[in-house]
């Protein structure tokens, strides 16, 4: 579990992170989104006990990041923005080194290393120099390193950057599998589709602050307003309709009508019943897709709006 309260970090006169508060439960994945320089990496570095917060506090796996740095680092597997591999070592040597540094016994080290190499499809290349690996292989090896000591918390900074789509998919699937093992995972990413596919909770950061956070649906409701439903008709229909409360008209085309619905569970059955009663040739009713990208762009556009100058 990760608990963060008013976490802030100042470099000289610049606040890289300011008053960030978050909670990530075991088995949950939190995706932190934001532009370059939004404070994502600084937040992760504080949660790894590499940087000391200027104010606020955080507990990672129950350990305080300031007073129990060693225990925090032992509980966390980190995938850094740059993969950070030693090019003259082989994959096996590299994982063995980190296994030893995490204090794994020989048998456990060898078992975990072989399992991870197999899992990430690196077994064949395991004895080759890392310098000869492709970008994707390097990223997978870095992820294997982060998992070598089987940490309860994973902090992944851009886990699929520089990967081909197939490898990225593989890594995404593996991250999703890690969730089921009750790990607490934070992913920093620019890839909104990836965040949408993996995250249970999303936080959008801008200039060191969390602009918005919550589950995907919470974020969509908060930023995009009421959900939109598309009623597809078999032909033209020009009838009128008394809309139930909490429902408003959207656009109306010859074969399609759009409604905004505040509480779909109660309003949609009434709406469909009314349409059928007025002999509307209803074929289907579907929720209009609302992507994380829409949420993100809406939030960022709002944040970047010029504020009025006070006189």
């Amino acid at each position, binding site marked *: 579990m990760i608990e963060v309260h008013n976490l802030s970090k100042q470099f000289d006169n610049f606040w890289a992170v300011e008053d960030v508060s978050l909670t990530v439960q075991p088995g949950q994945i939190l995706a932190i989104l934001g532009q370059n320089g939004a404070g994502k990496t600084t937040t992760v570095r504080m949660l790894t006990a*590499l940087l000391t917060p200027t104010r606020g506090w955080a507990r990672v796996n129950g350990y305080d990041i300031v007073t129990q740095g060693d225990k925090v680092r032992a509980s966390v597997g*980190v995938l850094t*923005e740059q*993969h*950070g591999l030693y090019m*003259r*070592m082989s994959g096996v040597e590299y994982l063995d080194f980190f296994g030893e*540094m995490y204090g794994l016994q020989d048998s456990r080290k060898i078992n975990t290393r072989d399992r991870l190499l197999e899992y990430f499809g690196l077994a064949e290349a395991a004895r080759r120099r890392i310098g000869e690996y492709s970008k994707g292989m390097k990223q997978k090896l870095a992820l294997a390193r982060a998992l070598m000591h089987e940490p309860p918390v994973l902090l992944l900074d851009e886990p699929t950057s520089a990967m081909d789509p197939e490898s990225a998919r593989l890594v995404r699937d593996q991250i999703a599998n890690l969730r089921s093992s009750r790990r607490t995972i934070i992913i920093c990413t620019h890839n909104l589709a990836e965040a949408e596919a993996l995250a249970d909770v999303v936080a959008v950061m801008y200039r060191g602050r969390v602009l918005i956070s919550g589950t995907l649906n919470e974020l969509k409701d908060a930023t995009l307003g009421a959900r939109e439903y598309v009623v597809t008709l078999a032909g033209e229909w020009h009838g009128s309709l008394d809309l139930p409360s909490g429902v408003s008209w959207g656009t109306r085309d010859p074969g399609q009508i759009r409604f905004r619905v505040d509480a779909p569970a109660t309003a949609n059955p009434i709406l469909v019943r009314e349409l059928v009663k007025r002999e509307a040739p209803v074929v289907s009713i579907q929720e209009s897709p609302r992507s994380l990208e829409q949420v993100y762009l809406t939030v960022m556009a709002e944040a970047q709006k010029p504020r009025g100058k006070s006189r």
Partner: protein
Amino acid sequence: MKEQLQYVWLLSRRELRDQLRDWRILTPLLILTIGFPFLMNLVAYYAVDLTNQYGGDLIVDRLVPFSILTIGFFPITISLLGALESFVGEKERGTIEPLLSLPLADWQLYLGKLTVGIVSPLISSFTSTGIYLFMVTRQGLDMPDPLVFVQLFLLTIAHALLMISAAIVISVQSTSVKAANLLASFVIIPITMLMMGETALFIRLDNQVLWCAVLAVIIMAGLLVRLGLAHFQREYLLGRDIDVLNLRWMWKTFWEYFRGGAQNVGGWFSVSLKTTFAKLTRPIAVLLVIAAASVWVGYAASQVYLPQYYSATGMETERLDALRARLSENGNLENISGSITAAGLFAHNFRSTFAIVFMGLFSFGVLGLVLYVINIGQIGVIIALFQLAGYPPGPLLLAGVAPHGIFEIPALIISCAAVLHIGLTLVTPQAHRTLGEVMLEALADWLKVTLAIVAPLLAVAAVIEAYITPQLLCSALEIVCK
């Protein structure tokens, strides 16, 4: 502890393996290790031939310790490059963050890097020295004394420690390998000067002084390691990306420390200076003990060695008679009193204290302390000299030293204490403060004490020494001469 040190070794072992796979490090190291002893041997023969042609009367055996010292030194210079990029290189390659994310203490990371930095050059140094010694035996030259071997062995280790630990400090403080390499001259130049001094001692074969030099170099190496440990912070490696010479920040920080929160001159004296002086009480106490010991050692050593020296050189009667004659001629002293000005004395004494500061700044106070001991020890030597010349030292001390000494000696002690304080501050862990900030505070403390206490005391001492002490000394010596 053993388990914690095991992680240090694991860290070093990985890097050592990495180095041994890098031909850019390996090739010059091998060439130097194997080739340099032959080159040194050849050069030594040519040097001896050359000096002997001009009546230099130099023999090759005398150059053997110097050659060993030099041969041991060169492989370390190559390893300096590895040490210089130890942290900053990993930062540039992006490998530092996984390393820093390990559940290791800062000291383990630091010692891991230091160990690998020391091990490879020392192996190379000792291999090279071994090859040279083999050549020495084959040529039938005299081997140095076993004690000289011990000194050479300790000096080589101390040089490696000094250079590598300084390089690692630079590596931690730099934000790019390029910047670290540029700063390397701050390591190479002082060490080269140190080597020149040691070489002179080896050629003179002045063993006792050489032991002092060995001790001083080992202490400095130890303090440098301590400095590195004290200021190694993970955050410092990750928190900065560019080197900027921020003169404005430097001046602002220095001024804030110098002012010490005071709003006016009165406040500065009563609060800021008082606080700084309170920091110096412990160094002052230590220096008082050292002063007493130095006077006693100067006196005792002079009692033993001066007669030996004079009788050995046959100068005993001549020198002591000359001294007696000078002391009996009051007119001479009066003449001297006329030629000495207060300004000249002040400038001379201020130069002496500044020399202590200058030497101390580069050696955590160690070399400054050596100068201090030499200065204070002279009092003991003078007392012994007068006794040997047949004069009771009491009147001399009272009339010739005490009047200005009560101002001058405290000034010297306080100035040296401020330098020791700089050294102590640098090697003390300072949470959340950069090395630069710590240095600025220490320098501000030194300047405060120098301007407000040392300089005024030296000025008063200079006036007394120029215009009062000679008069008192003349009267005192008149009594003595009678």
